[in-house]
């Protein structure tokens, strides 16, 4: 069989069809429209089914903490009467150490149900560990394909640690240098092994996160007698935010504001060999967050089940220095030592809480495990070794790839709003590109774009002029 780059890429659709077990064509409608809800219903699982699946492998039902000291600290810096109660959903308590266990549990369960012998996932991160852990529990083989090193053979301590964790669960880890052709290696492996593609973006993966949203609401109601006002989700590929928001709606929490938070890595190219090790965040950053929000179908399956723009009320960025600072704050003031990447939403919430009233509730919806490599100490040390200027100062002066600025004072921690209008505009532009001919959008297509962007049909029309 022809294993050249072009030959393998041209067999992409055929390989994927075998490896995911979903006929995406079933959900394709007129023009650019596809029936997202039908896909989630028919190809995914209901909330009740997921709870049962996850319960069998100890996934979910993670604790929720009220961060009293951080709330008090926020109130010290907020105007009188401001400073919402900050709660944190401790997803690090899942078997593999992050919320990704929820995604993996459903995907691996599904693979086993369909009779696949093994699962493959392409990820440098927590998801790989989650798939490996679930595969171990269900007795399936597992291969993780990871973008790990630059051309000097140097890897972020965080990524190297995650490779170790995957191996600890019995997975084979295929480590690659930087580049989007990781997808080519991934396709090759799927074709060679006939394993299931445990993609992050299948309906099973996203539906798996719905329990995070439903639990969170139920726990907050139980603790405080009311629903949360704001939930902050770390946003990368969009699955975390999408699943959480869907789960919240399924238990009747329609009014909760959903905020996406990403680390600002502006100016660093995701496929650049030299930029690779200048990033101190390998996930939860704008390099994934923005492209996947404005064009969700750029993932490794024909249609992504992660469609964050449908659910996002607000999108903020936070700097690397601010997230590292908040990670240390969480350990020092709340006694919770957790991995930095998961604390992106915490840093944003600490700032947003100060805009809210004292009797309001803001929830940070995830944490991740920490340890050698995945801790602020090795990550800051690695940054310094790579010539990144690390110092205390004003986070607003941070330049990704050049400096990491730890806030001189916690009052300098400030979530910066991205322009939602521009993000929606960018989504609409991508749809126009997708159309590939000069015809006008049909009414059905306009309604689809409206739902996708959380706009009215009239607003969509206005953007097309």
């Amino acid at each position, binding site marked *: 069989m022809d294993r050249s780059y072009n030959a393998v890429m041209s067999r992409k659709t055929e390989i994927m069809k075998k490896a995911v077990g979903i006929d995406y064509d079933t959900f394709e409608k007129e023009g650019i429209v596809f029936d997202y809800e039908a896909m989630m219903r028919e190809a995914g699982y209901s909330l009740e089914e997921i709870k049962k699946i996850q319960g069998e492998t100890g996934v979910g039902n993670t604790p929720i903490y009220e961060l009293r000291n951080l709330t008090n600290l926020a109130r010290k810096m907020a105007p009188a009467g401001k400073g919402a109660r900050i709660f944190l959903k401790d997803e690090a308590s899942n078997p593999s150490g992050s919320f990704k266990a929820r995604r993996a549990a459903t995907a691996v369960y599904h693979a086993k149900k369909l009779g696949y012998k093994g699962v493959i996932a392409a990820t440098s991160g927590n998801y790989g560990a989650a798939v490996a852990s679930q595969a171990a529990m269900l007795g399936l083989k597992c291969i993780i394909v990871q973008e790990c090193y630059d051309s000097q053979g140097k890897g972020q301590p965080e990524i190297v640690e995650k490779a170790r964790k995957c191996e600890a669960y019995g997975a084979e880890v295929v480590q*690659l240098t930087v580049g989007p052709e990781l997808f080519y290696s991934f396709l090759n492996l799927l074709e060679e092994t006939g394993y299931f593609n445990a993609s992050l973006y299948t309906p099973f993966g996203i539906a798996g996160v719905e329990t995070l949203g439903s639990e969170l609401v139920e726990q907050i109601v139980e603790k405080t007698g009311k629903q949360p006002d704001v939930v902050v989700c770390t946003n990368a590929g969009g699955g975390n935010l999408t699943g959480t928001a869907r789960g919240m709606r399924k238990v009747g929490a329609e009014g909760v504001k959903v905020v996406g938070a990403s680390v600002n890595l502006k100016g660093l190219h995701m496929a650049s060999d030299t930029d690779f090790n200048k990033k101190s965040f390998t996930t939860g950053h704008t390099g994934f967050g923005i492209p996947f929000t404005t064009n969700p179908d750029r993932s490794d399956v024909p249609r992504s089940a992660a469609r964050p723009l449908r659910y996002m009320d607000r999108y903020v960025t936070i700097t690397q220095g601010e997230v590292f600072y908040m990670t240390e704050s969480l350990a020092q003031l709340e006694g919770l030592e957790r991995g930095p990447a998961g604390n992106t939403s915490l840093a944003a919430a600490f700032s947003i809480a100060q805009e809210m009233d004292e009797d309001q509730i803001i929830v940070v919806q995830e944490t991740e495990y920490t340890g050698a490599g995945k801790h602020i100490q090795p990550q800051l040390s690695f940054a310094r070794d790579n010539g990144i200027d690390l110092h205390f100062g004003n986070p607003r002066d941070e330049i990704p790839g050049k400096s990491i600025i730890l806030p001189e004072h916690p009052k300098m921690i400030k979530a910066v709003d991205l322009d939602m209008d521009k993000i929606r505009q960018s989504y609409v532009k991508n749809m126009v590109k997708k159309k590939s001919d000069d015809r006008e959008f049909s009414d059905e297509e306009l309604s689809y774009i409206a739902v996708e962007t959380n706009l009215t049909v009239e607003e969509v029309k206005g953007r097309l002029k």
Partner: protein
Amino acid sequence: MLAKKGDWVMIYNIVLEPKDRAPQIPEDTKKVPLEMWIKGFLLEDTEVGEMADIETIVGRKVSGKLIEIHPNHKHNYGNHVPEILQIGKTLKELLFDGEGK
């Protein structure tokens, strides 16, 4: 150095030479090959630096240049970063109003 059959080793391959890389990637990445590292059990005695066949932990047979015997994880908690110590100190002073001073 000779690695013995059955040893846990690491092999190396070039997946794509620079000329074969995808057209859309940045210039710096296009200059270098796409490289790959895989670990597994060595199937025949082989000298480090020679081509080797391995069986991975999931039972896949792969060939590549033998580069390491008993590869270990080299990551750790890194060098001491003095700034980190200042964060908790500052915060506790702020929050607890200089208690214990």
